[in-house]
């Protein structure tokens, strides 16, 4: 028994040293990534100071062109969105930003059913931010909810990089695959909707019940920005060939926006956009042309809506 315990102790010591060493090496790779998703998340959590911040998932990342918002609203803009993410990631971005400064305008891109879906898978994908767990106390309470044991697993530095290596190393070999630095967080998509998928606009209704946890997280997300004095703008992006006539989420958002006095722009019922295959890279995302058109249209509407005091805008 003593021999077994002695050998286990030796092994544990080797593992602890390897964990710390490899963790430190990976920290260096994370901090020096020329671009890519880790560079982008680090920039949002640690460096960004832009007046306008866009937060969303893949639609947020592809549909909003920061340069257009900058030109139209006359203030620097950063797109902090990340594909495949949901409310937990948005909250992490918020905590990282608010820990350092208060943006003047926050544009939240929301999906038509975002408040009707269970958040469990969204917590799992927010695991992308595990490498920042030890250095960012403000996001820990959110990441701890990934699993009951996450807090303990994340004691390992190596575990915080679990499955991240491909995307961590890729920017060192291929530039701009997750968007170029000059695009300020925007990830343009090329091409058009596959010919097989070209069809007439379909009218849709999503009437499943709201998820209380998702609703609570949205309330917190918007509430925290408002409490700090940011102007929050809620936007629902358009989809190709899908006109969402109503959804429980949209109904809630409309009431919520009215109650919180937050502008809400819904484009998911915009038939003209939904019918234009030339604007879409796939049914869910605008292509570069569509994104430019959409950003111009939205920034113009925001400009019309916002009080003159914000950013010193003049109508």
């Amino acid at each position, binding site marked *: *028994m003593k*021999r*077994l315990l002695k*050998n286990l102790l*030796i*092994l544990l010591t*080797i*593992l602890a040293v*390897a*964990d710390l060493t*490899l963790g430190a090496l990976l920290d260096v790779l994370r901090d020096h990534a020329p671009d890519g998703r880790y560079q982008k998340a680090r920039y949002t959590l640690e460096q960004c100071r832009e007046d306008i911040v866009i937060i969303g998932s893949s639609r947020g990342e592809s549909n909003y062109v920061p340069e257009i918002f900058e030109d139209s609203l006359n203030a620097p803009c950063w797109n902090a969105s990340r594909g495949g993410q949901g409310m937990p990631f948005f909250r992490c971005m918020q905590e990282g930003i608010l820990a350092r400064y208060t943006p003047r305008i926050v544009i939240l891109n929301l999906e038509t059913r975002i408040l009707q879906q269970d958040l469990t898978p969204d917590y*799992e994908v927010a695991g992308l931010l595990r490498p920042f767990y030890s250095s960012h106390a403000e996001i820990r309470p959110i990441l701890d909810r990934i*699993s*009951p*044991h996450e807090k*303990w*697993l994340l004691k*390992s530095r*190596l*575990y915080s*990089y*679990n*499955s*991240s*290596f*491909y*995307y961590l190393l890729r920017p060192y070999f291929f530039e701009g695959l997750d968007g170029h630095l000059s695009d300020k967080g925007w990830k343009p998509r090329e091409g058009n909707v596959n010919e097989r998928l070209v069809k007439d606009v379909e009218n849709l209704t999503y009437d499943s019940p709201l998820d209380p946890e998702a609703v609570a997280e949205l309330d917190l997300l918007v509430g925290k920005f408002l409490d700090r004095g940011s102007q929050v703008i809620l936007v629902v992006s358009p989809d190709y060939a899908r006109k969402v006539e109503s959804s429980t989420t949209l109904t809630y958002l409309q009431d919520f926006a009215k109650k919180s006095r937050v502008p809400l722009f819904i484009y998911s019922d915009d038939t003209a956009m939904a019918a234009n295959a030339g604007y879409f890279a796939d049914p869910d995302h605008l292509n570069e042309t569509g994104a430019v058109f959409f950003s111009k249209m939205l920034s113009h509407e925001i400009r019309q809506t916002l009080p003159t005091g914000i950013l010193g805008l003049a109508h």
Partner: protein
Amino acid sequence: MLFNSIDFAVFLPIVFLLYWLVANKNLHVRNGFLLMVSYIFYGWWDWRFLSLIFFSSFVDFFVGLSLAKIENQTRRKLLLIVTLCTNFGLLGFFKYYNFFAESFAEAFSLMGQSFNSHTLNIILPVGISFYTFQTMSYTLDIYKRQFKPTRDPIAFFAFVSFFPQLVAGPIERAANLLPQFFEKKEFQYALASQGLKKMLWGLFMKVAVADRLSLYVEAIYNYPDLHTGLSFMVATVFFAFQIYCDFAGYSLMAIGCAEMFGFKLMENFRRPYFATSFKEFWSRWHISLSTWFRDYVYIPLGGNRGSKLRTNANLFTTFVVSGLWHGANWTFVVWGGIHGLLQISEKRLSRLGNFTLPRVAKIALIFVVTCFTWVFFRAATVGEAWHIVTTIVTASGNDIHIGDKGIFAFSILSLLILFTVDFINEYRPEVDLMNHRLYYVRVATVALLVLYIVSLGVFDGSQFIYFQF
């Protein structure tokens, strides 16, 4: 409790130390301790279902004693029927009630009659198929006078619920496992060390291979209408390794865990994808179940003692029943049936002449056909399976869905490591690095494996596939 959970990582060392330092001083105390921790292990999932294991053990313990005492054949048969009805009744109710009720209603509707089936909201108790088969083998062996029953209820109850193999096997025979509960055990470093290494490799198979591959497989199989033949082909190959690593990984962890407590369980998987025939495949795949069906279904049906037709019918029936054991769905029945037909065809072909293919070609052929059968195992319905097979065979579409490139790349990497280790174990066992003669090589190998698991394992607490069977 899952082997790949933090709960188990805390449970195991505590139980291990208490077992060797405290409980092992007395045989009855030790068995009582094993029984208690086994019930805690199982009850961690849902304590209510402990009553099923207790009831099943209770019935078989007393039926076993009575069967040994009674000479009257009619009364012995009656007792056997009692235990068969009890065990298969519980299994049938919890696992198959809804399946048969729905199938019955569908059969009526096919005949133009309407029949309202009443399905129930039943939770399938984890591992019920495994411990039911284990207790059944005990009683059947006593009935056949091949085994003498134990008079020690604690040892028997501990045998039925022995936590390393309680929920997903190997399905042990009483003749192998029960006597081990009466042996005095001394701590053996070599056995405990081997056990830990087996657990580690099993964990690698589960979290670094099976769970990694499942991410891709699910993305394809959950949307059968969206994907091309090439994507299905890749997903099916991935699934072949996913199910192998999921189940063989669990079995290896069970075997390793038992060894840490001084118990030896039977080998359950022996690198099945190196098989050169279907017969050999089944002597390498889920060995404890294959031999169970051979001894308690195929041979009692007559085995190969009758005509060729009868032998083939026995073989086919055994495989269909084996398919149904895997799950209450027609997909499993079809999967079992196809394997039965493959065995029959293989026998016929071998009688027709001696086909000499190179060994590599034979391995490849068996693997490809086995993959074809896995489509039926994995698909949600037979219709869906057929759609997938058609999509593959007609090579519909020419692009491949890679999905998340990281997941795909790590899946390939894990497969390469698995293949290398299986190849070494199959053909060059002397090169096995985990058991290398040099201490530093062994330590380095174990450390690298742990680091790989931490870095690239999937830790979403996913269930083992075979728990549902």
